[in-house]
């Protein structure tokens, strides 16, 4: 194959790509914050043992973990669109990713809760704490410590699946790359540079999480 690389069009558009990289980070981080809150709730509901509400959490987790993330985005885009509910591309991606993250994180949290010995709760209650206090002050901090690394993995996953946003018209890093690349159709060069940007973003996340872990878990 005879192919001459043209890098200039990519470097001319590099500021746009880097700006889109920030949007990728923003939507991923936001979807993680929402996902953690929802995932924690789902895990608690699932573990409540109340079948009237547990089915809701189980259904959510099953769908989020066992269907393609792309279809979940399409649900929030064209699926809701069929019923006259029109979300912006940003909201489609945020809702889709938060839904997906919550499903995966709920199972991580459930594993985290299972790893905490029952005696911790008993000890907390024996000190006069209410069940809520015991959860907030004793159990959940330990769970968060156990699921810290799975949460980091989920954050990396969130950054990577946010690239599906380009298929619903969202201009995060992959979407912006596609838009810019189609001007000159230098797809190979554009996506290669974008892959490097993704790699750097992921490495920054992993490095930051290690630094935070080093600071948080010293004792």
């Amino acid at each position: 194959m005879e192919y001459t690389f043209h890098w200039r069009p990519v470097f001319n558009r590099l500021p746009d790509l880097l700006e889109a990289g920030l949007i990728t980070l923003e939507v991923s981080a936001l979807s993680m914050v929402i996902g953690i809150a929802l995932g924690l709730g789902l895990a608690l509901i699932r573990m409540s043992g109340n079948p009237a509400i547990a089915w809701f959490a189980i259904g959510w987790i099953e769908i989020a973990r066992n269907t393609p993330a792309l279809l979940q985005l399409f649900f929030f885009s064209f699926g809701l669109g069929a019923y006259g509910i029109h979300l912006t591309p940003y909201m489609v991606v945020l809702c889709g990713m938060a839904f997906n993250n919550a499903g995966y994180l709920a199972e991580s949290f459930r594993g985290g809760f299972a790893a905490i010995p029952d005696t911790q709760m008993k000890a907390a209650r024996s000190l006069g704490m209410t069940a809520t206090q015991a959860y907030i002050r004793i159990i959940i901090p330990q769970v968060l410590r156990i699921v810290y690394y799975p949460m980091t993995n989920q954050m990396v996953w969130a950054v990577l699946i946010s690239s599906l946003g380009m298929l619903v018209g969202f201009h995060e890093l992959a979407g912006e790359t596609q838009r810019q690349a189609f001007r000159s159709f230098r797809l190979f060069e554009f996506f290669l540079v974008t892959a490097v940007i993704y790699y750097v973003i992921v490495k920054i996340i992993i490095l930051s999480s290690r630094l935070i872990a080093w600071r948080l878990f010293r004792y």
Partner: protein
Amino acid sequence: MKIGTALLASAVIGLFALGEVESAKADKLDDVINAGKVRCGVVLDFPPIGFRDANNEPAGFDVEYCKDLAAAMEVDYEILPLTWAERLPVIVTNRADVVFGATSDTLERAKTVGFTIPYAIYYAQAVVTRDSGIATFEDMKGKRVGAAVGTVPEIEFLKYAKEWGTEDLYQGFQSENEVFLAVAQGKIDAGITTNTAVKPITDQYENVIAGPRMPWTTDYTSVVGPRKDFGWLNYLNLFITHQVRSGRYQELWGQFVGGEAPDLRIPGVMY
């Protein structure tokens, strides 16, 4: 005996070397003739120029052009269904020999692939929802607008959207079908497409009607081939002029689009 062997060996090497020279000279035109098949990339997301008929077979103006090219070259044809975004990559990666895909001949794209003289001319037009209130192009200011990603309508409209400060209201879709679905669902108020696609779409969706014509220039579209294969591009140029001279261009345009086929001339330019 030794001399005989040496002579034979030289002759064989010479023949191979000659073969090498010959194959090095062979261009895309020779390749297609020798392969006995021309591989045409066609966008089937673009009725009535390229679409699938009731039997799910590729059909339309561009598909007929591929068949005509194969007939002229006395080879078979293969239709490769493409999305808009794939039109140039299939040429660059040599998965297709030629693309009939209403490809606008922009100078940026011409750095990557080779363009023939124009083979069809279009203009951009919007399809809008019945209650959108869009009658003129200016009415689109502040409305939610969409187009297929990587197309000239997208590039041109975004220039206006930037000027108006309404870039956030624009949405790119992966295919024209998604644009039309989005208009029909009310997800966007207007979808920008090509004039030839307006009638089939407004016939298909009850709540979608023809919208205003876009203000940018006429869309000259070319057949696409490998950038450095001048012999092949010359052949395709000649094929386009023969289609016009033989009346086949008018015949196919009348069959699929209807009416008078546009003149393939750029005023004030000779090519």
